[in-house]
């Protein structure tokens, strides 16, 4: 069993207690309570209806597509879907909040308790509890850099549906917290309820963290707001844990606060204390009736739930005979898994998995491209693998061909033909070439025959050099062994 990271302070070891609140933008054609579009990157205030701008007399109408996405996500989190949930108004003033309240779910969320299994590496897993999932509206965005004296408001985001997913305080270090966040991102992407792009803000995270001596009660927690990458979340948790330990060991008390993480300085700063916390005056929104979801509708989405990463990984292990590691890497992202399944069809799956992970993913990482933007598509890569399998190209040449395909396009076969990279496996042709090498290098031959076997590699090298790397190394080896024996 993996032991969570414990932190060493001046007075002993400390344990972290972490819970995450994830805000996932629901993948949806329109907003939670209006018909406006939700496309990312549209010009400011181009996706704003009268409802989103809170014009007088406007009323919200629930978007059932967003409700369906929440139901699906609830199922994927092994959670209870509530037949009745209630939308509440969360009241506060801010220029990015046109209504003066956010419509959210406070006492009765759409999804209740559930759980997920997170991967901690080396086959280790941990079950993390989910407290709830609820639907709410996003706010607009203030822009302070557009005018010398004024702040401007963009309401495109106003009213976009969000799912707030609250975990139990079940995580004990930043590795677990990171694994949980990656897992949730993978889940919402698998079921298509959120695109999971943290850099576009469609997935954001608040972390609640406290420290305690092992075995003691929970300490006072601080909430770290609006973190937009897994890496930053892990760093923020680490920084915050040490900050709290330092306070307690210095004889102080941790104050319950909302804090902001600054990734540039790698530190957290206080936004407001518990005393300064808003009184949101939640109450049921009288413009909306309680949301009733029939048992049939809940069941329908349960039946339609796609295979999730855990099941897929297990299937990849059993069906394709892949190692846990390979299956885990391939199934972390559904698009990767789908790509693999297309390429491996009727091919050697283990070989394909290995090649994709070591060469293809490495290349994508290097040029920072996502798999859907890869210049080499699944069928093109498959064609290259066929050339390896039937001996047309060697493994080494294949990498060269792949790089060419990736950078300049073209099919594997065309590149092999145009660059003369076809592997020479013809024994007679190769034997003539090898004979010539031996004839021309008698001195090396003698050294080899008198026991310097390391020189074998030198002969292979010469043969490859003479053929521009296209000689079939297996055949070359056989011929060399035969001829050098004399």
């Amino acid at each position, binding site marked *: 069993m993996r032991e969570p990271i414990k932190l060493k302070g001046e007075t002993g070891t400390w344990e972290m207690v972490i819970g995450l609140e994830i805000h996932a933008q629901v993948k949806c054609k329109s907003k939670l309570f209006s018909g406006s579009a939700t496309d990312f990157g549209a010009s400011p205030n181009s996706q704003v209806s009268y409802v989103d701008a809170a014009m007088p*007399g406007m009323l919200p109408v629930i978007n059932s597509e967003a409700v369906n996405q929440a139901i699906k996500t609830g199922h994927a989190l092994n959670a209870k879907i509530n037949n009745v949930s209630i939308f509440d108004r969360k009241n506060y003033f801010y*220029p990015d909040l046109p209504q003066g309240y956010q419509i959210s779910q406070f006492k009765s969320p759409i999804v209740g308790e559930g759980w997920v299994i997170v991967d901690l590496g080396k086959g280790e897993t941990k079950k993390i509890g989910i407290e709830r999932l609820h639907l709410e509206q996003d706010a607009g965005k203030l822009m302070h850099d557009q005018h010398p004296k004024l702040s401007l408001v963009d309401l495109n985001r106003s009213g976009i549906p969000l799912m707030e997913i609250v975990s139990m305080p079940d995580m004990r270090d930043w590795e677990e917290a990171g694994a949980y966040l990656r897992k949730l991102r993978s889940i919402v992407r698998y079921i298509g309820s959120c695109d999971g792009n943290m850099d576009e803000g469609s997935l954001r995270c608040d972390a609640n963290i406290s420290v305690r001596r092992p075995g003691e009660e929970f300490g006072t927690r601080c909430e770290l707001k609006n973190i937009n990458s897994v890496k930053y979340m892990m760093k923020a948790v680490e920084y915050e844990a040490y900050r709290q330990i330092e306070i307690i060991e210095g004889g102080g008390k941790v104050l319950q606060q909302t804090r902001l993480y600054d990734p540039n300085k790698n530190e957290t700063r206080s936004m407001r204390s518990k005393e300064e916390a808003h009184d949101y005056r939640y109450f049921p929104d009288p413009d909306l009736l309680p949301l009733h979801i029939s048992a049939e509708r809940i069941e329908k989405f349960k039946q339609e739930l796609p295979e999730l990463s855990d099941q897929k990984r297990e299937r990849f292990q059993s069906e394709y005979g892949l190692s846990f590691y390979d299956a885990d890497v391939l199934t972390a992202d559904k698009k990767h898994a789908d790509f693999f399944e297309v390429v491996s069809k009727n091919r050697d799956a283990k070989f394909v998995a290995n090649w994709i992970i070591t060469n293809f993913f490495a290349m994508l990482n290097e040029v920072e491209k996502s798999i859907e933007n890869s210049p080499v598509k699944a069928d093109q890569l498959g064609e290259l693998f066929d050339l390896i399998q039937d001996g047309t190209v060697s493994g080494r040449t294949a990498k060269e061909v792949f790089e060419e395909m990736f950078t300049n396009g073209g099919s594997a076969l065309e590149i092999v033909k145009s660059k003369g990279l076809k592997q020479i496996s013809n024994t007679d042709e190769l034997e003539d070439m090898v004979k010539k090498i031996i004839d021309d290098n008698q001195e090396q031959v003698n050294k080899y025959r008198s026991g310097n076997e390391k020189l074998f590699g030198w002969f292979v090298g010469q043969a490859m050099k003479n053929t521009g790397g296209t000689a079939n190394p297996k055949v070359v080896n056989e011929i060399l062994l035969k001829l050098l024996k004399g």
Partner: protein
Amino acid sequence: MTKITDLGVIETLEGLKSKEFSSEEVVSEYLKLIQSDSKLNAYIHFNGEKSLLEAKKSDQRRANNNSLPLDGLPIAVKDIFCVAGEKTSACSKILENFIPDYESTVTSKLWQAGGIYIGKTSMDEFAMGSSNETSYFGEVINPWSSDGDALVPGGSSGGSASAVAAKMAPIALGTDTGGSIRQPASFCGAVGIKPTYGRCSRWGIIAFASSLDQAGPITRSVKDSAVILQNMAGFDTMDSTSADIKVPDFINSCSKPIKGMKIGIPEEYRLDGLANDVQNVWESGIKWLKEAGAEIIDVTLPHTKYALPTYYIVAPAEASANLARYDGVKYGYRSENIKDLEDMYSQTRAEGFGAEVKRRILIGTYVLSAGYYDAYYLRAQKVRTKIVEDFTMAFNKCDAILTPTTPTGAFKIGEKNIDPVTMYMNDVFTVPASLAGLPAISIPSGLDAKGCPLGLQLIGKGFDEETIFSIGSILEESANFKNI
């Protein structure tokens, strides 16, 4: 000869149909009255050019034999309905120059039925008031006022009631949250109905208290109200609280006999010290219904005494959130005198809202605050449920309930606006039906000691406006109330 403006809804429609007069003529006559009014201040805004243009189009439709149910009929609109292209302010400084480019569902349905927009009537600011004294555009006078003794028209739909009673409109739209149609109708001697909550769409009506607000007509006869409600009501997908229930034939129900119907008289409405004149009108009403063959029975609504305090928690709570959008950021009034964001909010709202609106926002904010929520808002919701149950029980025994609409007739301007609780007491008979979401109509039924109108209220079962239209028609006939 009868003047065109003396005609009610049905008479006007008949005259238009028989081509006795054109819509253009009707609209011109009303516009003359509206323009020359220097006494009542019932209208705050009108657009003669637009009204006449629409009237001409209506006459054209009639000439082409394509006329619509309400074709050519002038309709006055309370300033709480968004009318596209027309100033819509809820009589508040904070929305003084706001012009929506969208049309409320209810007004849109009426225009589609051929109705002609004739102007915006005054109201208490954001519908908060019972005397129309909180309007940013000044007091409205009750046409029943005698010289030198200006009376309030009631509120919040005071401008609408005053205009209809003074024959400056055959019909005016109102909204009712705790009595805002029924009370001014009663004070001005008009008929006013608050339909069942969910019967008319709230889309495009500036919200006061969302769980209570309902639109309805104010007219000079029961049947006129039926004709208008017929064309206002119906399910609207844009309002999640509107009911997907078929709209029955209200006009037909106005001429149905009431023989054998059971009319409940709630003992809890016999307040100590209820004025004799009100008591007498109530007794007359009971007598008339008996004579028409109805059976009078006693019913009990035990939680009635909690209705007013419950209402004055629920309505302000909802209002405190509904009015948060008037913040100076997007539209409407913004204070000039601001240094920072905090200032923009506080100065804008301090200057933009009147005293009564601020009072209710403060009450609403208070009752929803942490530590007070359970004692006030939550408790009020529980009592509201009890009030609903009271009515359910009572309606197991009767078909409708008869009560006075108001505890007194119209009072003098300035008489009751010193102490808010005295003013709130005006709503004591109208608020219970609002909290229960039930339809209720006020019928002018007699006069008070000063010779001013008093109304009787009929409360019906949910989505049973038909019964109160039937009984209301009998009351109307028996009372034989004479308009000014």
